[in-house]
């Protein structure tokens, strides 16, 4: 009897863990393949100046953007002119999914992007060909290896009042807001500074130099990676979230203890 069982085990075909193992292997393989795939797409090399890229971009633009921005990107009453907007602007707006807009509202929101990296760059090339504007940032400024202290000071002077000192974002007027800056790729942070998307002011290179921008990016990456030293961050939103926590959790505990202390034992 014992021998028979052993033989069945040895054949391995009906082992109870076989299915689990199979699923695990399957997940691993697809995961790895996906990681490999997304990495290759992130490093897509495209020549922004080549005529074929520009004409591809023009086609995409005509099909997707021209209703609001006009056939030659000269602008209509529904959308501003993009002449001189530059490649950085297109890469930011389309690359974060803000464009095409889901609807006209106080602010375009981040949403799943609708175009591949390649298509985005083709449109960027087309818009850049219409007039001089801020170009894509150089990768050496995006590494996050700048001067964190200097970046912190610049961030507090130029950015913190809208984006919150911990980069957690904040409210503006009439439904507009400054988004949080954690989890945002360095490229998009840089592009936002040079182009001033939505209601953000422009921080051109003459205002904050490319190296200073690199410092700010380094600072943002630093606070993103460093654990908070103060325990629960409560969203880093400051007194509102903290007050709510104290009122509900803190006072709730005090009330519960008071009720217990004064209740008659049974």
């Amino acid at each position, binding site marked *: 009897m014992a021998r028979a069982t052993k033989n069945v085990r040895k054949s391995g075909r009906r082992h109870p863990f076989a299915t689990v193992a199979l699923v695990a292997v399957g997940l691993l393989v697809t995961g790895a393949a996906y990681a490999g795939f997304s990495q290759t797409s992130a490093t897509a090399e495209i020549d922004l100046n080549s005529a074929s890229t520009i004409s591809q971009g023009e086609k995409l633009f005509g099909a997707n953007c021209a209703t609001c921005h006009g056939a030659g990107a000269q602008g209509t009453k529904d959308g501003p002119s993009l002449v001189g907007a530059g490649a950085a602007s297109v890469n930011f707006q389309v690359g974060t999914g803000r464009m095409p807009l889901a609807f006209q509202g106080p602010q375009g929101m981040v949403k799943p992007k609708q175009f591949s990296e390649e298509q985005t760059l083709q449109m960027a090339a087309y818009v850049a060909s219409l007039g001089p504007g801020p170009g894509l940032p150089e990768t050496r400024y995006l590494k996050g290896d700048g001067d964190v202290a200097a970046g912190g000071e610049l961030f507090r002077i130029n950015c913190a009042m809208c984006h919150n000192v911990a980069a957690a974002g904040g409210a503006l*007027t009439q439904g507009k807001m400054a988004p949080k800056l954690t989890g945002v790729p360095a490229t998009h942070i840089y592009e936002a500074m040079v182009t*001033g998307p939505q*209601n953000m*002011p*422009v921080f*051109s290179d003459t205002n904050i130099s490319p190296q200073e921008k690199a410092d700010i990016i380094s600072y943002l990456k630093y606070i993103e990676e460093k654990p908070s*030293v*103060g325990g629960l961050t409560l969203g880093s939103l400051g007194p509102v979230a903290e007050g709510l926590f104290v009122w509900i959790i803190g006072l709730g505990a005090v009330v519960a203890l008071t009720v*217990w202390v004064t209740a008659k*034992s049974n």
Partner: protein
Amino acid sequence: MAEEAKNSGVNDAVVAAQSHSADGAAVGTAVLSSDAVQNPGLPPHRERVTDLDPKKAKRAERTVYTLFYISIVGSLGAVLAYMFFPIETGELLAVRLHTMFVGIAMALALLAVGIGAVHWGKALMADHESIDERHPVPSNQETREDAAEVFTLADKESGFSRRSLVRNSLIGALIAFPLPGITLMRSLAPQDRDPVQLLKHTMWDKGIRLARDPSGVAIKASDVTIGSAFHVIPETLTHEEFSKLSLEERGGSENFLDAKAKAIVLLMRLDQSQLKELPDRKDWSYDGIVAYSKVCTHVGCPVALYEQHTHHLLCPCHQSQFDVSEHAKVVFGPAKRPLPQLPITVDKDGYLIAQSDFHEPVGPSFWERLK
């Protein structure tokens, strides 16, 4: 008798009142209300489970001493946490772990001993109701008469009410007594200079270049692209430059941060066609570039949330909004006055310079503010 009064109607109240002294009611009580709340007396004594069941009592006892032991563990734990999670490495993570473990252990120590003590008192200590009689508040008649006599005697001997001139002058002296305190407060303000003058002047002056905060690098008009916002300080307001200045040139502030707090400016460039300018201030801007004090006129927070499309500046403290395209007039919120504008122009090298100091004091209102 009281029982009767309660049962009979309103008409009987007078009768009851006449005979109330017999009821123990105070003399002069005209009406005995017939619906007064009756003293409910003590509720029936209810035994606790720990009184009825010795097993439960044992259990409560166990809970209490376990809690006390937990408290000891917590206290020792706090000591251990202090030793094993030191903040000496300079790592931020170390601070977090240190505070977290020391905190948890101390919370355990304090909460457990507190909860244990309360539980002991509630479940195990003797449980019986008793009444503490309240003592009458006034002292007895004799003591009160004695006291009154002391006062009358004191008044007579001192002549307090007889010599009214002396009395009134004493009252006057007592009223005047705290006044020096108020003047002493004045010494908290700068001694040798008039605080009003101090608040009216900043470091800005004719010809001072507008520079970036914090680097102090001067700004060329051509650097300012449309939609830009620059955070600006006077070129002379960097640590090295500041130490070389005279008090006059520092806008009256001895200290760097005071000077900076008054002088900070936000510089923006709008499309020239969007500026609505008063005729007498037309030359305060340069080619669509305008500069405004960053100090909110409400209570003085730095106003720097600039929305480039609406041209509104938002103050983060109480949500005042200022319209930059119209001399920073208030469009919303508690601020009452527009932000002061810094008149600017360019020098021959193309750098932005101030035409003068602000024409009105910056920041919130204060005494003797003329505008």
